[in-house]
């Protein structure tokens, strides 16, 4: 069985790449993609810890990690829907999805 650390490193890697996408790319949709990647990396962490942790039927019947991850999947899906809806609406108004061009919130 692969050790826990391996999974954690992979998750960290994916997380970092997702963060990089969010911070460096110009397209708003790519930012959302980055966010999804980060969420997935966190899910992987959760599942990995769940697998390598105790499975006693104490709290939550020993399914805590997996349940957390499942709920996280659901929430991420909802968030993606709303976020993409926002991008679409913005595009309808401004005809662009360029992040650097969205400066209306400038004080």
């Amino acid at each position, binding site marked *: 069985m692969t050790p826990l650390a391996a999974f954690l490193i992979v998750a960290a890697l994916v997380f970092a790449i997702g963060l990089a996408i969010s911070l460096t790319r110009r397209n*708003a949709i790519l930012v959302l993609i980055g966010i999804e990647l980060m969420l997935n990396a966190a899910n992987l962490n959760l599942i990995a810890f769940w697998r390598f942790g105790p499975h006693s039927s104490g709290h939550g019947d020993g399914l805590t990690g997996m349940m957390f991850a499942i709920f996280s999947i659901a929430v991420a899906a909802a968030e993606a829907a709303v976020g993409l809806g926002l991008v679409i609406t913005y595009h309808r108004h401004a005809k662009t999805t360029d992040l*650097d061009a969205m*400066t209306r919130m*400038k004080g």
Partner: protein
Amino acid sequence: MIVCSASLMASWLAQDQAPNFTAAYHGGPSWIVQILWLIPAIPMLAAGLIALLKQSQRNLAAGLAIGSLGVSLLLAIRAFTHVLSVWGQGGVAREVVSFNWIELGATHLQLGWILDPLAAIMLVMVSFVGLLIFVYATGYMAHDENFTRFFCFLSLFAGAMLGVIIANSLLLLFMCWEIVGLTSYLLIGFWYQKPSAAAAAKKAFLTTRIGDIFFLLGIVWLFAQTGTMLFYNHGAGAMEPVALAALLSQPAALGLTAAGAIGLLIFAGAAGKSGQLPLHVWLPDAMEGPTPVSALIHAATMVAAGVYLIARVYPLMSAGATAGGTTVSLTVVAWIGALTALFGALVAVAQNDIKRILAYSTVSQLGYMMVGLATGGVAVGMFHLITHAFFKALLFLGAGSVIHGCHEEQDIRRMGGLGKIMPVTFLTYAVGMLALSGFPIFFSGFWSKDAIIGAAHAWPVSEGPFVLLLIGALLTAFYMTRQVGYVFFGSWRGPSHSHAHESPLVMTLPLSILAVFAIGLGVLGTPAWPWFTSFIESKRLLVDMHGFSEPGLVPLMGFAVVLVLLGLGAGWWLYMQKAVQRPATAPVHHHQQEHGDEPQHRPGDIVDVLESSAPIIWKWLANRLYFDELYAATVLRWYAALAWLSDWLDRRVWGGTVAAIAKGFRGLGWANKAIDSQWIDGTFDKGCEELVTGGGLLAWLQAGRTSRYLRVLALGVLVLAGLELVVGAMSGQVRP
């Protein structure tokens, strides 16, 4: 009132323990006592229902009123027979129901009702006479447009009066007492558009109110001393030996004991309600109300409530009396009663309004009842009350019949010769008159009044009331004969175009029934067969013909008879034998009848024989010994001065203070504004400018670029996480 009765019923129904009963026999409560509260409640309920009816539903209103009082009468009769049977078996027939109404900390205010011989006989009398008067009123008020309202008030009055009778608690009695006063006000001022009627109603209410204030003081004092307001409560009531002993041992002011002082206070209330001196002034003016009202309220029942109250609290009034002496309270009652008796009789001689004569006669007879109570005990006073109720109601209803027949004429100088035109009225009126005068043997008034005179003669304290009562008896016979002579004898002195007529059956039938009772009730109180006394005092009845042979009794009775005949004879001589004629010279006009100061001489009115022979005395008597004027000059003037002072205080002193305060506040407001605009605004505006500048500076940071925000966010989280890890590593949480 609705709230009160609802709370009453709720509290009674919600009792944890059953209301306590005192049964004289069998050990169980009798059902009639349990439902005794229905007797006043049903007429009150009828009053409430009638209040919802339209003015046009006259028959329904009259039916409801008469029906409800009829039901009460039946229940009263049943209660009476119950008490009779208990008495007949030799028991003490006093049954009490009481319940807690309001809790005040550790004490309770209790209400309850009582059924004993006194209450039983009063219940039957009030409901019976009331029923007859109700029937009479349907005829008398037939032409009045406010028929329905009249019966609503009448019903309410009947209910309240019955409530006063059965009340076992001073509190309940007072509550019903006040309702009686209220309905009296409403009924006296029934024709409220007439200013004199409205003024009379107000006068009645205020005068009885003065009495009621003292009454309330007495009640509160009694409650404070004894902790109970119930009359009888298995030995814990206020009229029972334990409480009375406590009251006797408490000294009050002026050498009185608490019992004496409370007794006097309660008598003040009774004096107001029963028109004793000096609170009598409202009763004659109360004749402004319709005649059935006068008959019911001011002859038979409401004024009797005062007498009944004294009878109820008689144990209190007589507490502490030694054999051969009496208490202070009863002495006061006797003297005031005697003075009232004489006063009323004197003034009645010189009145010309048919109802006013009867009103003063009532005042006088109430004085007799008070003397009877004070000198002879409950039975003596109450017997006269019962007989008086019947013949005075008869007289008032007869007067109403006369007024109705003469088309609302009330001055006896403008009547005459009605004996032939209105035979039934004449006959019944004559019966009433003879009963009131005390004509011997056949008429009830003789027996009851003689009992009082005998008791006054035997009073150990003084012979004064006795003498006054004898003079009063003489005058009573005299003025009644004068009245009958004016009204029924001689020839018609009214307007020539109007003719009198006999009244309809619905009015003459009650007259006849009352006349029968006016004669028949006498048998209840003869010395040979003292049924009434034995009944009231729950003693065994002994038929004893030797009762007449009591020493001094027959001579006294004989002397009283002589006086009565003297009065009757003088009246006959002056007013009947030489028939009162209209003077042939002056023309007669039909004026609007005025009720007010007497005497009013309109052109064509005859001058009374006595008036011409002793004009000064006559003027004094006709003006009621100037009592009203005395009050107007003293009490009312003083009161008006007080009112003026209050007004001045209010406008100048209090108003000035308020205005000054207002000015002060205005000044404060101005100062506030100055401070605000100068300093605060200045500083505040400066501060705002600073904020705007600072905000401008900070806003520069917001470039509006999302990617930059993201980066800053990520950087911040990174730094935080890093810090946490570093610190954790350093403190050994993370293994190196």
